[in-house]
């Protein structure tokens, strides 16, 4: 059984008066129906401008499948292109109309109403729990960083549960309410609401620049944060920005220990609790504090300068971009994982011959290597596993090969999902699309953070071998060097020249042991040396 995925991208230009440049909506919805050869796609967003401050939206709703199905993923992001683009490159597309509706309970998500919106506040719920909704009706008013917008539903149904109440804030993409199709399901939806409110969405907020490879934010540790009381007696002292951040990252402020002056909780404390890199603006603050001459006595002492590096005159300081700071954070985080490396020479003559043959059909070397790795991983599931908590193996049900790509001063790892199941040609096509999207900064979060194994290839630069750093959350990464003619002596003592490349795998020794890796590499090598199976 194949798991099919399909994507449809819609971009719509907003009405002229409203943000002529910036506000374009691109929503992609992935729904995977495991065990069913069917695809259901939900169309989204039809802008229907009424007034300057009120724009109507079709609510994004996606099916929640009730069996043991991998979580559906939904994501949205924004782009600044103007033309319509529909990239639906999969044969599955024509079939979608005939698909049966599997789901009865749909989530209403916090929509992204502007390019800078990362969270939205519920101004008011126009409908209340139990109200019957019909398609196109306004359900909720959302305040973005720009305006108040009416959000409409695209489905008929009953508003079963409100997950995010009035005055509360939710990140873009987080469920804010549940829509049931029939009355019987209301109870079920309510139960779900209770669960979902305690397990907040892990979708990172849509950002204008895609976060880096494997930047899977560690799931927020907190329970649904009770709205921080703004009034009334409190013992905990948190600064305004700290409170904002806590809300945004769903950190329970009561669980955070303040390290600021007078024991107050500062933005840095929240960022530490959320496990995110300190924001750029915080750095700017520190800079400005440092640049401030000693304040009067009552002022708290300025924070000690963090680094003691000698400043070389004439040097310029360029702060990290969002992508770069996420890379930085991940790299530092990787130090906590006990890794080891195993190298293996692989003969590539057969692969090169195959490559020459399939190249005209649009197949790239990346696709070949990804496919080979995926096929090897299928035989060695432990190498596709990872250790998330230091106590257990997490075996991944699908083999998603992330491939590192350098991009405009950054690094991103678009993910070839189910690389073992897709054929080489589809894989190549998919790869081409992912690279285009990555260049246009239009990758959806699940297109760069769902990898289970990473492939990094520096062979094209003539690098013969290198050592890759294991991205947090994955079990292994493969570093592929250049294929070079090498003199080999066979067992009979004859010399011959064969093309060989060195692959070097870095793995997490908590779950993947030397023998596992060696066996995996042997399989990989066999596949590459007899590559015909790649095309099957």
């Amino acid at each position, binding site marked *: 059984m194949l798991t099919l995925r399909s994507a449809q991208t819609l971009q719509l230009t907003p009405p002229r008066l409203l943000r002529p440049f910036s506000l374009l909506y691109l929503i992609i919805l992935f729904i995977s129906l495991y065990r069913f050869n069917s695809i259901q796609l939900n169309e989204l967003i039809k802008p229907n401008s009424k007034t300057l401050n009120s724009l109507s939206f079709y609510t994004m709703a996606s099916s929640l499948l009730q069996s043991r199905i991998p979580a559906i993923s939904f994501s949205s992001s924004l782009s600044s292109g103007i033309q319509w683009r529909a990239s639906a490159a999969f044969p599955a597309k024509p079939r979608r109309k005939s698909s049966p509706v599997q789901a009865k309970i749909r989530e209403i998500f916090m929509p992204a109403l502007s390019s800078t919106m990362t969270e939205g506040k519920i101004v008011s719920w126009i409908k209340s729990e139990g109200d019957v909704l019909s398609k196109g009706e306004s359900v909720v008013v959302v305040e973005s960083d720009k305006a108040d917008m009416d959000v409409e539903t695209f489905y008929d149904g009953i508003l079963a549960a409100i997950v995010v109440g009035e005055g509360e804030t939710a990140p873009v993409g987080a469920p804010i309410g549940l829509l049931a199709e029939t009355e019987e399901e209301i109870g079920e939806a309510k139960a779900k609401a209770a669960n979902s409110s305690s397990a907040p969405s892990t979708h990172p907020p849509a950002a204008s620049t895609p976060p880096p490879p494997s930047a899977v934010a560690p799931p927020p540790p907190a329970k649904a944060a009770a709205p921080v009381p703004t009034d009334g007696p409190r013992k905990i002292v948190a600064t*305004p920005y700290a409170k904002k951040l806590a809300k945004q990252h769903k950190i329970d402020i009561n669980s955070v220990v303040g390290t600021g002056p007078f024991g107050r909780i500062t933005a840095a404390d929240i960022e530490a609790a959320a496990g995110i890199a300190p924001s750029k603006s915080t750095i700017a*603050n520190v800079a*400005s504090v440092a640049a401030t001459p000693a304040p009067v006595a009552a002022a708290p002492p300025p924070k000690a300068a963090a680094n003691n590096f000698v400043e070389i005159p004439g040097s310029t300081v360029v702060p990290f971009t969002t992508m770069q700071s996420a890379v930085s954070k991940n790299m530092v985080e990787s130090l906590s994982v006990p890794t080891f490396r195993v190298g293996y020479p692989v003969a590539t003559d057969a692969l090169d011959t195959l490559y020459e043959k399939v190249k005209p059909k649009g197949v790239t070397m990346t696709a070949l290597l990804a496919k080979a790795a995926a096929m090897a991983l299928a035989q060695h599931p432990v190498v596709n596993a990872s250790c998330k908590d230091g106590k257990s193996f997490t075996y991944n049900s699908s083999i998603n090969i992330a491939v590192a790509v350098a991009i405009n001063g950054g690094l991103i790892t678009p993910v070839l999902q189910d690389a073992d199941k897709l054929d080489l040609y589809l894989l190549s096509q998919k790869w081409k699309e992912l690279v285009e999207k990555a260049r246009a900064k239009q990758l959806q979060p699940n297109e760069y953070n769902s990898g289970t194994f990473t492939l990094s290839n520096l062979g094209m630069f003539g690098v013969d071998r290198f050592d890759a750093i294991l991205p947090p959350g994955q079990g292994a990464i493969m570093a592929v060097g250049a294929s070079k003619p090498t003199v080999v002596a066979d067992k009979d003592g004859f010399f011959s020249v064969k093309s060989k490349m060195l692959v070097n795998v870095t793995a997490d020794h908590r779950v993947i042991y030397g023998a596992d890796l060696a066996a995996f590499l042997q399989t990989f090598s066999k596949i590459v040396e007899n590559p015909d199976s790649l095309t099957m």
Partner: protein
Amino acid sequence: MQSSISLSLSSPSITRSDRTVVDAFAANNSLTPRSLRFCGLRREVLGFKSVSSTQLVASSKRRQLNKVLASLSGNGTPTKGFDYDLVIIGAGVGGHGAALHAVEKGLKTAIIEGDVVGGTCVNRGCVPSKALLAASGRMRELQNEHHMKAFGLQVAAAAYDRQGVADHANNLASKIRSNLTNSLKALGVDILTGVGTILGPQKVKYGKVGFDESVITTKDVIIATGSVPSVPKGIEVDGKTVITSDHALKLEFVPDWIAIVGSGYIGLEFSDVYTALGSEVTFVEALDQLMPGFDPEIGKLAQRVLINPRKIDYHTSVFASKITPAKDGKPVLIELIDAKTKEPKGTLEVDAALIATGRAPFTKGLGLENINVETQRGFVPVDERMHVIDANGKLVPHLYCIGDANGKMMLAHAASAQGISVVEQVCGKDHVLNHLSIPAACFTHPEISMVGLTEPQAREKAEKEGFDVSVAKTSFKANTKALAENEGEGIAKLIYRPDNGEILGVHIFGLHAADLIHEASNAIAMGTSIQDIKFAVHAHPTLSEVLDELFKAAKFKVNNSSPVAEPVAV
């Protein structure tokens, strides 16, 4: 020619019907058309609202020319039996504007100042705050990587030097102060140093404490003593960690976290300064919403842009009942109580607190009791001609009060306009200032400006007087210049009568809103209808096209026979 100009000056705020005013003025004009002044919005006066020093230099030059012309009548021939024709107590912007106009009118004028020339605006208000806002606005822009990137610019780690920013504010104040002083001296206005006190009708004494006091007689007196920051009970201002705008403008330190009590103009501007310089801000507002006094729609948008995305939180419907400065290693402690029930609403611990709850009139020691005038909450009661009213409700002859001291409209340029209006009356020409034509601005980034009525006020008035109100809006997002600046955030809102095209109010939130409002305020002052002003041409591409579009967006009822006024020949 000028007849149409005068009409609007008087119209809305007076009790008489517009028609009679029109007739009265028309008659008046036909007699002495040239002597009329409109509304006091003279260039010279507007000059010192601006922070541009070049303009000030230019205007003081102009004043010197005036002096040559005026010296024909001179500042030296008082009415018989008096030392002076006009004595102004207080050399702030109001007193200064009145003095300049008085000299031009040939009155022998003196101005009494107990502190420094320039008053609040120049020394502790609009002027230094504009310097801080200019610096912090740039800081904010440079820190906004997204904004810079959109221009293709790269800026590495912007930082500031607090003392440098503070010096800029201080230097600007000194420069403007000396400009003002020089302009008075150049005109020959006598600057009398000391505290002025009214001894009786047409009699004023002045003198520094501990020195001999002098008594002078004068035909008319203008009180222009202005205001000081008001500090509610229970708040202990130490000038270091619990401060008023007077201290904040010196920018002696930038706290990590500052509470601002009051979210009006002053509080809002300081929140802009402090957040740009890296502070976090907590507003404490007694009313149930932030930015009371602004048009609700503008306030809502402003909150979305100026408050929500910044490191600011707020407590509304609460009073700061007690504020203790930081001492003994403890932070500033603010006790909050519910504004209505007075129940305790918790405490705040912050690094500093700025009290921006408004300003109180500075009218003590004026000797008002000598002429039987009772202040109301400190304000000197006046009629619509700034004529002081005594405790019996009667006008006190020859005594006027302008500016913050009368509390009609606590704005520097309003004070100046009132002063000019008074001088007109003193010279025998009736003049009533139309306060609805006086613009106001808040210099946040982006700026907020307004003139006339807010939408709720206009609707209330319309209800009472039985006319319709329409609203037109345009967005900065549709303006080429704003988009070129990557500053498309903002709207302009026009509140008007669809029957005759009268402008009731204009509110702007967006880039350079404070500079844009004057097209609207002038139209209100001159009674220009929208039907007429919409034909005026605006250079392209400029921000002024936001207003151009706004006027063009107005829709009228078919039978709009009588526009408010004739077109103005300029």
